[in-house]
């Protein structure tokens, strides 16, 4: 190639044969200036900004939950305010806000007017948790700042948490220990706590009698009744077998009833005893209240706590929350049954969804002939993920509980009818419903993981004379396992926090029994159960006292997030172990 007449508007090029090629010169200017657009910098920035917004939202949400959740159980000081009318209010401060007062919420218009005018028509009010629901019929009160005469934090004011009616705030006047009266002067929190310890052991005994011993008698009574009913169903009412069984039943129930009477009278005696140990309390306005000591779950002087005492109150509240059963329409006590139910359900769901999803994906990816039909199935599977979850709940109730469960009841538990066993919502059906809900996630993830197994590995295996099944079993599946685990983690995270379908297939507000107990067969898949997600819904929207429920909502949310997080971390650790096994090495 040679150049002819360079530098003109046209360049004339000649190829090896001498043919002249004419080429229009576009005379493009090359710029050495930093080209903003070409580098894509603005796009990088906007991508970064989008990410930042997303991260900020998540961090903000988690921080909100953490802040509120962690602080809920911290013992706050109790303030006693004196109002203009002479009333006193004691309670801990929940929040304060500025508001525009109307005539109805200003107690004394004349004297308040000046301060309100000074504040440009605005006024401040604070919400106090006052407790003492049994005395005043509400346990939260708004206090208007301009009504307050004085405010102080008495060191000896008591905060008493009890089994019923929420907390009591006030002071102790005297204690009646089975006739032995201890007057206020000699009364200390230590003395109260000592009496409380004794009362606690009595309470535990009552609990044991009612929840364990009487429950087991009821269990055997029911078992005897079912045995009788079974014979009746098989042989008829007139048969000699039934008559023999009836004799047995009568004898059995008689002994059981006798035992029951014995236990019931023991419980009654203890309760009788209990009522003789009381404490006479008085709130800040001097209203008296006599409280059986056994009703007290925790008591302390919130304005006079050392650091260790404060930590002790905080930790013991967490302990109660994590290990106890709920009380007072779920707004107090613990959430142990809900933790347990959530955990059981998630594990069962994972056990259900994993084989199902993996098998389906294996067939779709490895065996089915790739064509229109398979594409159609794939599209359907992907769309399943978009079906509203409540629809799954309806399906679970209709198919699993009524059809499947109904048939199981008729086949295996005819003697229990008309009370359903498997024929209503329960742990098993809820898990299966959620498994169904999350199976698309697992299928998609598994298919992707299978596709990511290098063809060279499969070929290597096949070249060794392995069959397709052997190749899948020994090479493809192990190698795809981390990817499958990822799908499973996503499915678990989705499943554990799903609430809507569960309300239809077995989650209840308050489950009488845990799904695992000491009666054969120990694991009761048919039982309804409690779930943290539903618990949150129930607290937040169904409880009598929404103000009291707010902190519990935060704590429960924190707990649910932590639980899901912990389960995810566990699976991620397992997955990383697998990954390290399959993806190390270098070339």
């Amino acid at each position: 190639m040679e150049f002819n007449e360079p530098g003109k508007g046209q360049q004339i090029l000649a190829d090896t044969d001498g043919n002249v090629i004419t080429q229009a010169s576009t005379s493009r200017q090359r710029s050495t200036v930093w080209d903003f657009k070409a580098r894509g910098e603005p796009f990088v920035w906007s991508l970064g900004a989008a990410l930042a917004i997303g991260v900020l939202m998540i961090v903000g949400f988690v921080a909100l939950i953490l802040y509120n959740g962690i602080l809920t159980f911290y013992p706050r000081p109790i303030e006693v305010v004196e109002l203009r009318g002479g009333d006193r209010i004691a309670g801990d401060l929940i929040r304060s806000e500025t508001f525009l007062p109307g005539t109805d919420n200003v107690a004394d218009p004349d004297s308040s007017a000046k301060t309100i005018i000074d504040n440009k028509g605005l006024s401040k009010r604070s919400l106090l948790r006052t407790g003492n629901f049994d005395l005043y019929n509400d346990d939260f009160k708004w206090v208007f700042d301009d009504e307050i005469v004085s405010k102080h934090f008495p060191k000896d004011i008591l905060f008493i948490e009890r089994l019923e009616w929420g907390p009591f705030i006030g002071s102790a006047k005297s204690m009646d220990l089975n006739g032995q009266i201890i007057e206020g002067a000699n009364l200390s929190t230590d003395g109260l706590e000592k009496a409380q310890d004794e009362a606690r052991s009595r309470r535990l005994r009552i609990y044991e009698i009612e929840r364990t011993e009487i429950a087991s008698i009821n269990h055997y009574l029911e078992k005897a009744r079912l045995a009788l009913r079974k014979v009746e169903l098989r042989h008829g009412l007139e048969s000699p077998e039934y008559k023999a069984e009836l004799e047995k039943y009568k004898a059995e129930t008689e002994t059981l009833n006798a035992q029951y009477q014995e236990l019931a009278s023991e419980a009654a005696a203890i309760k009788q005893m209990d009522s003789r140990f009381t404490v006479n309390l008085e709130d800040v306005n001097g209203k008296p209240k006599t409280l059986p000591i056994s009703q007290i779950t925790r008591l302390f002087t919130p304005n006079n706590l050392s650091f260790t005492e404060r930590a002790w109150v905080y930790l013991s509240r967490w302990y109660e929350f994590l290990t106890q059963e709920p009380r007072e329409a779920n707004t107090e006590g613990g959430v142990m049954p809900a933790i347990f139910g959530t955990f059981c359900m998630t594990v069962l769901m994972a056990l259900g969804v994993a084989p199902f999803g993996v098998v389906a994906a294996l067939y779709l990816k490895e065996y089915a002939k790739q064509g229109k039909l398979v594409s159609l199935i794939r599209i359907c599977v992907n769309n399943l993920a978009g079906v509203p979850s409540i629809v799954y709940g309806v399906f679970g109730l209709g198919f699993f509980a009524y059809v499947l469960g109904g048939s199981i009841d008729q086949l295996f538990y005819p003697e229990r009818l008309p009370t359903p066993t498997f024929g209503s919502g329960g742990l098993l059906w809820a898990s299966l419903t959620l498994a169904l809900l999350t199976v698309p996630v697992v299928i998609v993830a598994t298919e992707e993981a299978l596709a990511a197994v290098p063809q060279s590995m499969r070929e290597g295996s096949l070249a060794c004379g392995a069959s397709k099944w052997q190749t899948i079993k020994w090479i493809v599946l192990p190698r795809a396992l981390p990817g499958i685990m990822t799908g499973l983690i996503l499915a678990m995270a989705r499943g554990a926090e799903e609430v809507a379908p569960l309300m239809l297939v077995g989650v209840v507000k308050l489950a009488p029994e845990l799904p695992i107990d000491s009666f054969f067969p120990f694991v009761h898949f048919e039982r309804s159960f409690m779930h943290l997600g539903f618990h949150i819904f129930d607290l937040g929207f169904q409880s009598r006292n929404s103000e009291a429920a707010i902190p519990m909502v935060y704590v429960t949310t924190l707990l649910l997030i932590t639980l899901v997080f912990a389960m995810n971390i566990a699976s991620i650790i397992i997955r990383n172990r697998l990954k390290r096994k399959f993806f190390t090495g270098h070339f």
Partner: protein
Amino acid sequence: MSSSVDDQNSTVYHIERGSQGTLMKISDFNLWYGKSQALFSVNMEIERGLVTALIGPSGCGKSTLLRSINRMNDLIDGLTIKGKMTIDDQDIYSSVVDVIALRKVMGMVFQKPNPFPMSIADNVTYPLKVDGVRDRRILNETVEKALKGAALWEEVKDRLKENALGLSGGQQQRLCIARAIAGDPEVLLMDEPCSALDPVATAKIEDLIDALRGKYSIVIVTHNMQQAARVSDNTAFMYLGKLIEYGETSIIFTNPKVDKTMEYVTGRFG
């Protein structure tokens, strides 16, 4: 030097006959990927116990031919073949042949080392695992024998339980050779076994091929002329899906009978 490719469709042969006779006969073998034909009427005999090299420019069908021998191409959709291929007078593509049994007669080594993500020992015994061999003693013997056969034993004998993916590229490729010979095959098919390796590792593999000569019939695809010249007894030159010249390696590289071969081995195209 009288013939040119275009006007003549037949291959020029001058192969060296081995002392153990002929192992495979490929006659009039054609292959199509969908509509496009990749192999045109290949006729070829592979001698038992010798090393046969397949050379030719990229895309000429070497891998295709090699993979037809152990029917690895069966995995590909829309593949059609015509013609015959026999091993020990048994038709490879007959409908009664069990592909799995056939593949057990042939070990294959791929271009990129592809050890399985398991221990070194498990990699080597994989063909036995496939056969259902569970006897520890046999497995251990095989590991040692195959690794010695692949000249890897000294380097890995203390870390047999370690993950094979931790080996270097050259070691991995020798491990794959060990795996290929562990099943005690008759034929070794190697598709550019050294292309991912450095010269030292390549030399080791070439020595290994030399040592395996006589025990196995080896078919090796290579882009490296010197390598083909060094290790093989017969060389087949392919071009555009056709077998152009097939014969003694020394003749192919010094005095080929076809112009095209000459051009290729002297590096004028390819």
